[in-house]
């Protein structure tokens, strides 16, 4: 395959995306071929080192925002339809079907993010409350000793130390859980994006 053939196949896979994005991606790969040829590699060899244009296109598309990919899917179906008027009519008639589906998809994505965020905030609030209670008990145990009984004061000191200890133990696992949850949202988003990326060969 020549450089032009590769970038051509690449651009074909990226059809429907904004021109600026297509240019950016093809320029990246053209540069990769040029750099290799500059070091003495033949054109065929340099292009072969890039792998499959379809795979390159798919990987590049995964990094684009979801709305861009959705618009690409719409454009693709529009370009595929020979009768543009028919397409417009069907799109309008089909509105009661695709619009609720779109809203549902948006709702599901929002729900995933909102749930994850809510869980993270709740866990954080629990740990914060433990910390505040522990510090308060630690500050208050001496006055408590003096105003109630020494035994009660000592008890409060014990409670304070237990709470502070619990907070310290929980900090690491909580951070891990939050990171894991954040990663979950990334996986979810990538799964949705993959729905919109064409899986066709050249």
């Amino acid at each position, binding site marked *: 395959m020549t450089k032009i053939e590769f970038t051509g196949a690449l651009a074909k896979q990226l059809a429907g995306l904004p021109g600026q994005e297509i240019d950016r*991606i093809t*320029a*990246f*790969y053209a*540069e*990769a071929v*040029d*750099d*290799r040829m*500059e*070091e003495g590699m033949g054109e065929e060899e340099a292009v072969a*080192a*890039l*792998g*499959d244009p379809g*795979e*390159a296109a798919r*990987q*590049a598309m*995964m*990094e684009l925002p979801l709305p861009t990919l959705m618009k690409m899917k719409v454009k693709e179906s529009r370009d595929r339809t020979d009768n543009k008027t028919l397409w417009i009519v069907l799109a309008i008639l089909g509105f009661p079907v695709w619009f609720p589906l779109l809203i549902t998809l948006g709702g599901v994505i929002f729900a995933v993010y909102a749930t994850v965020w809510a869980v993270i905030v709740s866990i954080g609030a629990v740990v914060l409350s433990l910390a505040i209670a522990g510090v308060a008990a630690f500050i208050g145990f001496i006055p408590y000793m003096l105003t109630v009984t020494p035994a009660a004061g000592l008890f409060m000191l014990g409670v304070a130390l237990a709470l502070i200890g619990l907070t310290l133990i929980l900090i690491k696992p909580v951070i891990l859980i939050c990171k894991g949850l954040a*990663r979950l949202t990334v*996986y979810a988003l990538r799964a949705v994006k993959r729905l919109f990326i064409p899986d066709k060969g050249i």
Partner: protein
Amino acid sequence: MDVQLKKGLIEICVLKALETEDSYGYQIIKDISPYIEISESTLYPVLKRLESGEYLEVYSVEHNGRLRKYYRITASGREKIKLFIEEWKEVMTVYGYISREIPEFEEHRAVKKSGANINHAEKGSDGND
């Protein structure tokens, strides 16, 4: 290797390749190829992600009549490298334990079975503790 793990490792390798000096696509691939499987298809998304995360900056330089994209690491990029080294210290300890213990266990089993005194050569690990 797990895909996401590999992508994370490639990210950190790219940042490391830019640590001492700015570099460009093909040079980065040459620098990190000995350590991890990398090609342009995997590099492009990684560079994009690092750029949107502001771990690196992009700028163009004219080279032999064409424009070549160069990448420069940022302060957050350097932080990310430090964080990786810190996080993986524990992984390396576990790896040391796992890879060291098993051959010794096998050797103990062999000694017990034959009842003889086997003169075994330690392969670079620090002897029995």
